[in-house]
């Protein structure tokens, strides 16, 4: 992301600053991203998450479908969700480069079976937002943060319990470069990772999503 590009996007960044209001206390600076807003998101299940990773990078996390519905270069306009009696979904203020629509793309033990997924909440840690849930009763954490070059989304899954095999059903992306690490490719679009029996520090299965066209 070059400097000019970033400043061009500043007006959009203000959108979220405006609806979000300033930060942690009356007299401190605005919070540093990520910021998570539970709200009405277009095309998502009820009460999904708008996640602002940086003033120029955002995504929709759907706790019911189970994953990142889309990620875009831009920000999130919450005003339609807040202004009237009959609300409307938030606006994706930017250019979408990554999209996902498979129901529960993360599967456990069998890639053909949609697991039972229960949402458990989220937390802020180490510059990331970490979503917690269970798949068929097994606890999974999914961390989302900006990549170290500040350009894209890094997404890593952590499973403490050993002895499980997970599959991720990856969809083809025309506008994003997607790179997987820590897993093995079973077939085109199907990735697999295992949680060790010796579970001290399981190697995370991770992916990065980056827009092919830089804004």
């Amino acid at each position, binding site marked *: 992301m070059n400097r000019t590009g970033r400043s061009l996007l500043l007006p959009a960044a203000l959108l979220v600053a405006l*609806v*979000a*209001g*300033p*930060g*942690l*206390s*009356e*007299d401190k600076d605005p919070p540093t991203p990520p*910021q*998570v*807003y*539970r*709200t*009405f998101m277009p*095309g*998502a*299940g*009820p*009460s999904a998450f708008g996640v602002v990773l940086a003033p120029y990078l955002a995504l929709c996390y*759907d706790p*019911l*479908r189970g994953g990142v519905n889309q990620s875009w270069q831009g920000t999130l306009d919450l005003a339609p969700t*807040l202004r*009237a*009696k*009959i*609300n409307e*979904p938030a606006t994706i203020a930017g250019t979408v480069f990554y999209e996902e629509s498979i*129901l529960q793309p993360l599967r456990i033990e069998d890639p053909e079976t949609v697991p039972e997924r229960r*949402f*458990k*909440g*989220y*937390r*802020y*840690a180490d510059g990331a937002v970490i979503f917690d849930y269970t798949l068929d009763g097994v606890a999974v954490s999914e961390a989302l943060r900006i990549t170290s070059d500040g350009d894209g989304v890094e997404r890593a899954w952590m499973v403490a319990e050993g002895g499980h095999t997970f599959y991720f059903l990856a969809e083809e992306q025309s506008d994003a470069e997607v790179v997987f690490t820590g897993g093995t490719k079973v077939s085109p679009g199907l990735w697999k990772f295992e949680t060790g029996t010796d579970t001290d520090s399981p190697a995370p299965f991770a992916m990065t999503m980056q827009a092919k066209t830089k804004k």
Partner: protein
Amino acid sequence: MKRRLAFFLLPLAAAASLRANTYEIEEITLPTAMVPEVSGVTFTPDGQLVIVNRHGEVWLTADPKNGPWRRFAFGLHEPLGVFAASATEIFVTQRPELTRLRDTDGDGAADRYETINDDWSVTDNWHEFTFGLHLNKEGDFILSTGLPDLAGPLNTLYPRVPLNMEKVHEERKPSPGRYEGWVLKVDRDGRLTPIASGFRAAAGVGVSPDGEIFATDQQGDYVATSTLVHVQPGRFYGHPASLKWAKDYDGPLDLPELAKRRTPEAVALPHGTMGGSPGEPVWDTTGGKFGPFTGQIFVGDFTKLISRVYLEKVAGEYQGACFPFIRDAVGLEAIQANSGADNLTIPAGRDGLKYFRDVPPRSGTPLRPGNMRMAFAPDGSLYVAQTTRGWASGDGLQRIVWSQRTPVEIATIELIPDGFRLTFTTAMDAEKLGDVSSYRLGRFRYLYLPSGSPRTDEAEVAIRELRVAGDGRAVELALEDLDPGYIYELEVDPLRSAAGDRVENPLAFYTLTRLLDGSLFTGPMSEPLLIAEKKTDQGPNPENGLSIYRTFCVTCHQPDGSGGALPGATALPGTPALVAADFTLRGPEAPLSKSDEELIRFITHGSEGSPMPPFGGVLKPNQITDVLAYLRSAFGGDSQALSPTPTQPE
């Protein structure tokens, strides 16, 4: 009209501010960074104030007067309830779940947003709310859910629990998501138990000091008027949409069967007079710091009203009385602007305006609308959280402080074998207490119908005997007709305290579901008993006139027509007579001795330099003749009768 109203209100406001109220309203200054749609208020065990707003934030302060405030959490989905276990562990109801917010790194802001339970499904509909949040005796969380409205879209994608879109009863508000229209319990292990069904939008849940659960419901289909109900496990409270989520659900029921299953409310909050949209019930546990109503319940309302409820147990179930506690003027212009509109600054709906009774403006800080959440502070003041989005305007946080002067009020109304016993907060003028003309008593019912119901079977009730207590603090009203199934309406405007003061809120309703022996109404729940008389003549209608009078004229002329000094008026010398005409006067100087033509002209155009507003722009000509017919029938005695074909005002 605007010019003259302003002329009237300015000196009034100036004079009125000299007078102290028995309860004062104070504004709490909120952080500028916070959008003041305050949708929840509570205190931590160590006394810090915690509020949430519709934008999804949680804010805290140890000093509500001076701040500073700290934002504890943000990004929540329309939280409408909050419970603070401590300043670092706060629970909120969001639309889709009950959430625990924790600050684990000690920086003053929550870093963990943990889902405690999400076993109900939501559809992003605008009328779908999750309300809360209080603990019962066992420490379980009590919350409730509202039904969506088909006037707005439903999001049916990826529901948390499969939806059931079937509309099984004749219902305007369905229950597509599991447990929509229920009061629910979530225990400390995060397990959900549905408690009771039949709610339309139980916008306020509360738990009594004894641990009993209560909820308010909102007037509309199947819920003829807003209510305060005692929530008991397994019971059904009237709106059938939610029934399909009951364990023992066995298909749709017809209206008589639904009526049989329905548990009646503890107290009806008659629509129009007692507001239009109640919020959270809170119990006065201040031990006298908030005045003489210890143990009673306060219920905020969306309109500019906070009401008070006194409950007693009759034949094993709660019933009782409601009173206005603090209400504020809406004003002629707002009434006119809102007439019939779906705007709850004054109650909407059929009975809304008809029974609405405006009051003179209070002195000092006025009460805002949107009073949906309240909590008592450790110092005994009552914090009122206000949010009005889309329905009216006015948001924020106020607190109500008792000024240590005893208000002259009916403290309690209790059922006795032949009527009611009223107990007052102070000794009363015994002569007026013993005078039948001090009381106006009536009764009515609401029908149980899919369409909702206006008041029906309205009738006056005669007082057979008055028994005044020796200390002048109580009176027993023995009635001609004391029957279960009716709401009794009492107006006591002429009563005065022993010191000569008016009753602050001379109005009360007792919901007489049962008599002392437990007997209940046995007639049809969904049909009137009295057949309304068909009006054949097209002449002026004093009944319509009464509702116009209550809405537009009582503020100055009083319910009993006696008029008198407008509030705060005497303090300003040199202003024109701020004295409303006394319609009960007799003789050639009496207002009602004038001809219809003269009076119609006066009501239409007002009078130059007088605070009597011209009503020509507010009321239609036939409404003016209706209200005149009412003046003559109610206060005119043998004064000149209204001519059958009155001259129409130009």
